[in-house]
């Protein structure tokens, strides 16, 4: 036997799917801006393991030595264009994110998303399970511990991007904020002089989104069609042999909410 389970509210589906292209545009236009001063790298001392970004990343297919070849796409010398997009879509990113946070707060959805006391332990179990080290099935719940940590972190990362973004955008009018973060420009916060701390954080948060995206898409593919479809339709088909999904971490609230994952 099967049954339908309501999984994702309409509002959350819209927030999610609006955020997806908007964040993509923010990352893309961010790269166009970053190109103009692409100083970040992974390395120690003068030794660089990876430079963000190598030439092939900006224009794959184009040979820098011979200056020939047809680039698949171009991400360089488009600073003005990048800023124009970035400063338009920042509004959509901010407003959509803010509405999402307000919605989860007032609808009670936060109960499924916010990590609890045992979340970390469960998240470790989830990771072990996904790596095929732990064989027992995971508890059937809307979001497991690993998801709760990931989905809550991403909200804080979004807030971080807005705050560091504002610090870079208006460093004088919001000097208190910029200074709180460690300054727009010369800073010793990371022990490296010449790093723009606000910009540095802004950049690495973006790298964090990319990492999140890769893991997220992998996990969605692994979870399968039924799970993915639920993010579009809101419903999931569940076999009744399974016990109904456990509620959020605080089961006493479930009945009040009438909420089923």
């Amino acid at each position, binding site marked *: *036997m*099967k*049954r*339908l*389970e*309501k999984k994702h*509210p*309409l*509002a959350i589906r819209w927030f999610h*799917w609006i955020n997806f*292209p908007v964040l993509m545009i923010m990352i893309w236009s961010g790269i166009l*801006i*970053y190109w*103009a*001063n692409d*100083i970040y790298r992974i390395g120690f001392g003068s030794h660089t393991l990876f430079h963000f970004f190598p030439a092939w990343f900006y224009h794959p297919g184009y040979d820098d030595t011979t200056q020939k070849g047809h680039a698949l796409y171009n991400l360089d010398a488009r*600073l*003005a*264009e990048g*800023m*124009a*997009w970035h*400063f*338009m879509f920042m*509004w959509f990113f901010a407003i959509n994110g803010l509405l999402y946070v307000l919605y989860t707060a007032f609808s009670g959805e936060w109960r499924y998303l916010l990590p609890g006391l045992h979340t970390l332990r469960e998240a470790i179990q989830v990771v072990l399970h996904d790596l095929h080290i732990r064989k027992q099935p995971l508890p059937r719940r809307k979001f497991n511990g690993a998801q709760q940590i990931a989905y809550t972190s991403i909200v804080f990362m979004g807030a971080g991007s807005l705050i560091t973004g504002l610090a870079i955008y*208006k*460093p*004088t*009018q919001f*000097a208190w904020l910029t*200074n709180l973060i460690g300054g*727009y*420009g*010369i800073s010793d916060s990371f022990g490296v002089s010449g790093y*723009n701390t606000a*910009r540095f954080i802004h950049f690495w948060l973006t790298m964090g989104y990319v990492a999140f995206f890769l893991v997220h898409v992998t996990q969605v593919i692994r979870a399968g069609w039924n799970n993915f*479809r639920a993010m*579009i*339709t*809101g*419903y999931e*088909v569940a076999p*009744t042999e399974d*016990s*109904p*999904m456990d509620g959020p971490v605080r089961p006493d609230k*479930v*009945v009040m909410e*009438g*909420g*089923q*994952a």
Partner: protein
Amino acid sequence: MTTNEPIKEPVDATEAGRAAKSRGAAMPVQDAEDGAVHTATNAAPPHTPEAAPAPSAPVPIAATPGIPVMAKAGDDEIEGQMHQMSRRSFLWAAVAIGAGFTTRQWLITRRPDNGIPWPFRRVLETNEQLARDYFKTARLVPNFAVAKADPDPRTNGDIGLGEDFDPDTWKLTVEGLADKNAPTRTLTLKDIKALPKVEMVTELKCIEGWSIIVHWAGARFADFMEKYPPATQSGETPDVKHKPNDLANYVSLQTPDKAYYVGLEMESALHPQTLLCYEINGEPLTPEHGAPLRLAIPVKYGVKNIKRIGKISFTNQRPADYWAEQGYDWYAGH
């Protein structure tokens, strides 16, 4: 739970129904968003055998106690409903994707306005209005210790700094002054140096994303305007200190060869850290840094810190700006 297990009559149908609903089982699911009632199966969770559908429920498959559930039919029904919902939702998704691409196409094909499609220009201008509303001349950029200043500040731009220039014969032209008999004047460096000398160690932030700390010295632009007041909008005698809003709206600055030019709105020109600068690191400006006179305006990106000023004009028309014409934000303020 096995599918043919009879379901006992609930003692209290409402309560049982609520309990069942809270566990998401055996209930027609009322979708809060679209109002559609999707009939789910009546199978109660094994740990709540007393659960049954609420009386108001549309007749679900095998809702009656004692009648075995036909698993096959139930599953088909569920899958059918899911298909129906999927069709509708995916149709919405397709419309949304189409709308997204149409919007993108529309955006990038709009008439260019100074290097970018006009919707982007309008947004930059709106951002500017918000920033100008929030702007206060009292908010100062951080002043650093002199020791923090870069001993060899980077020179980035050389537009307008052609070879064909003699600093000894240089003169500064000022247009749009309040004095009706002499709205245009020609000044020398001596005239600027006669104004109170101000030193500051501030960060020059480049629009490209890097910054340097520079030790500047020169005259406050506000002091310069006190001495050579711009025309007012009302036509009355200018009062730079007390009636700054009556002054001309904008300041235009350009190099002697007119190759590089910037525009400022009046409140940024009035900012106490906006200097007509003639010294860098305690030395007269070098040609690369804009000798003999340049602008140091730390409330703006580096692009507004014009080197080798040839002419200053006070105007009510929004002045042309070299980089704004290339698609950048005209305001470029912090």
